[in-house]
C-alpha cells in the first residue's frame, strides 16, 4: 500500500493552475523526494496532501484513507512542515510544542518534548526562548520537532534545510535519513536542491509548472532511459533482444542503444546470456544527475521560471 497516492490532483487559483493533474504513488518506507524549481507546485501539492488546501479536482489517499473524512483520519498519523515553520510568536519553543502536543492528543508528555528538543538541538536555554526571538535556523528546527510529535508514520518536510547553516544542513539530512532508516516511516522531502535530494532520497518525483515530469529512482533521473550494449555479435544480439521485446533505439559501431527503465539494465544482460551472447559492455546512457534534471525539467536550453 502506498503511503500517499494522488490521482489527477489539480489546483487552480483563479486563472493560474498551480498543480495540473498530478498522479503519483509514494511508496511506504524510505525517503521520497519532490524536486522542482521554485514555483513548480511542490508546496501546493503537499498542502493539498496535508489538507490545508482544497483540491480543485482529483483525489488524495493518505495511508490507505480517502474521502474527506478518511483524509482527516489519515492526517492523524502525518507530521508536516510545509512552506515555513509557523508557531505562536509570543510563546517559548517548549510551550509551542506542549500546546501542539496537547492539541494533537499525543501522550508523550514532557519526556517526548525533551527528546524532540534534544533531537533538533533546541535544548536548554533555546527551549525557553520566545519563538519570535529565534533565528531562522532555530525556527526551522522547531518546525521539524513539531512535525515529529506523536511519532507519525508519514512525515512531510517542505524545504526543511532552509535557513540552516552548513552544519545544521548536514545534521538535518542525517536526521531525515535516520527517521526513515527502519523502513516503518515514510518521509516526503520537497526541495529545489538537487544535491539534497540526491543525498537523502531513494525515489523522486520531479515537477515543473504544476506538472509531474518524472517519478522513479533518483539514479534513473541521470540516465536517458536507455543503455549502450556491446556484445561479441551485435547482429545476433539485435535479433535476440528484439525477439525478447526490447526496443532498439539505434545501432552504431559503438553498440546497440536499448531502451530500458533505469535500474533494470541487468535484464538486458540476462536475456542476452539466455541467447548465449556474451556481453562485453553495458552502461546506462546519460550524463550527470544534474544533466538529467535539466533534461527532465526542460532547463537544458537555459529556459527558467
Amino acid at each position, binding site marked *: 500500500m502506498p503511503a500517499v497516492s494522488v490521482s489527477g490532483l489539480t489546483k487552480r487559483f483563479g486563472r493560474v493552475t498551480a498543480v495540473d493533474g498530478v498522479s503519483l504513488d509514494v511508496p511506504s518506507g524510505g525517503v521520497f523526494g519532490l524536486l522542482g524549481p521554485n514555483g513548480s507546485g511542490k508546496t501546493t501539492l503537499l498542502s493539498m496532501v496535508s489538507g490545508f488546501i*482544497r483540491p480543485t479536482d482529483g483525489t488524495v489517499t493518505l495511508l490507505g484513507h480517502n474521502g474527506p473524512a478518511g*483524509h482527516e483520519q489519515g492526517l492523524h498519523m502525518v507530521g508536516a512542515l510545509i512552506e*515555513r515553520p*509557523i508557531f505562536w510568536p509570543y510563546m517559548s519553543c517548549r510551550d509551542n510544542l506542549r*500546546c501542539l502536543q496537547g492539541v494533537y492528543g499525543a501522550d508523550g508528555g514532557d519526556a517526548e518534548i525533551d527528546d524532540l528538543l534534544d533531537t533538533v538541538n533546541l535544548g536548554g536555554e533555546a527551549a525557553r526562548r520566545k519563538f519570535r526571538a529565534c533565528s531562522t535556523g532555530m525556527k526551522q528546527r522547531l518546525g521539524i520537532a513539531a512535525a515529529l510529535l506523536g511519532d507519525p508514520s508519514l512525515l512531510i518536510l517542505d524545504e526543511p534545510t532552509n535557513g540552516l547553516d552548513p552544519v545544521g544542513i548536514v545534521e538535518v539530512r542525517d536526521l531525515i535519513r535516520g527517521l526513515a532508516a527502519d523502513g516503518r516511516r515514510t518521509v516526503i522531502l520537497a526541495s529545489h536542491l538537487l544535491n539534497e535530494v540526491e543525498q537523502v532520497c531513494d525515489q523522486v518525483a520531479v515537477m515543473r509548472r504544476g506538472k509531474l515530469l518524472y517519478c522513479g529512482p533518483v539514479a534513473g533521473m541521470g540516465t536517458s532511459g536507455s543503455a549502450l550494449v556491446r556484445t561479441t555479435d551485435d547482429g545476433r544480439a539485435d535479433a535476440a533482444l528484439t525477439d525478447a521485446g526490447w526496443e532498439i533505439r539505434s545501432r552504431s559501431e559503438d553498440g546497440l542503444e536499448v531502451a530500458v527503465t533505469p535500474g533494470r539494465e541487468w535484464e538486458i544482460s540476462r536475456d542476452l546470456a539466455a541467447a548465449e551472447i556474451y556481453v562485453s559492455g553495458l552502461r546506462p546512457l546519460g550524463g550527470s544527475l544534474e544533466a538529467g534534471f535539466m533534461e527532465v525539467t526542460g532547463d537544458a536550453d537555459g529556459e527558467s521560471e
Partner: protein
Amino acid sequence: MRDASAIVTTLRWEWFRLSRRPGAWVILGLSSAAVIGALAVATALLHLTPIDLSIASHGFPLLAFEVLSRLGPFLGIILAAMIFGGDHGWGTLRPLLARGQPRWQLMIAKLSLVAIILAVLWIAAWILAAVVGLVAGESGTVPGGLFLDMPDGWLATVGSFASAWLVSIAYTGLAALLCTLGRSTAFGMGAAVAILIIEFTVYPVAGLIADLFLDISLSEYVRWTLHGTSGGVMGRDDDLSAWLFLPATLVYITVFCGLTLLVTGRWDVGSGNG
C-alpha cells in the same frame, strides 16, 4: 461524545495560548478596572451626597450591568480578534489543523472560549457589585443598599447580565466572521469596531434627518439592526419588551457563527503573514 471531548481538549489549549498573551491580561485587567472603578466612584459619591442619588436607586449590580453592557461589545470584539484573528494572521491555523482535526471543532472551541471568558467576567462583576452593595448597605452608606427600588429583585439583575452577555456574544460572532473573511486581527477588530461606532452615531443622525426632512420614521428599521436588537434585548427599547428581541439576537449570533464555520470549512488554510 468524541466530538465534544475533542472540542473540550481544543478549548483547553486555546486557553493555554490565550493565557500566555500579555495583551489578553491587559484587556481583562482594563475591563475589571472599569467595573471596579465605577463601583468605587459610586460608593464614594454615596458617602459624599444624600441617598437619593439616582445611581443608588438602581442598585450596585445594575450599575455594574450598565458598565458591562457598554463594554461588552468591545470586549467581545477584542477577544474574538485575538482568538480568531491571531491564528489567521500568523498562519497558526495550519499547525492546529495539521493532524486532521475538523475545522468546525476548532471554531466551536474558539467561540466557546470567548463565551466562557465573558460569562466568567460577567458573573464576577455581578458578585463584586452584590458584595459592594451588601457592604454599603450594612455600613449604612446606602440603606438597603443592594437592590434599592428594584421591583423585580435580584432575578432581574441576573436577566440583565445574561442579556448583556448575549449581546457581547453577537459582537463576538461579528468579529470572528470579519477576522475569518479578512484573515487578520487588525481587519477583523477594525471593521467590527467601525460597524459598532457607525451604528452608534449614524442611526440616530439618520433617524433625525429622516424624521425632519423626509417624514419617514426609520426607528422601525433601526430597531432590528444589530445595534437596535442589542439595545432591545437589554431593555432599552421603550415600546417593545426585551423578550421580543431575544430571537432576533439569536438569529444574529447564528448567522455570524454559521458563516464563520462555513467560510473556515470551505476556504484554504493560509500560511499567514509571517
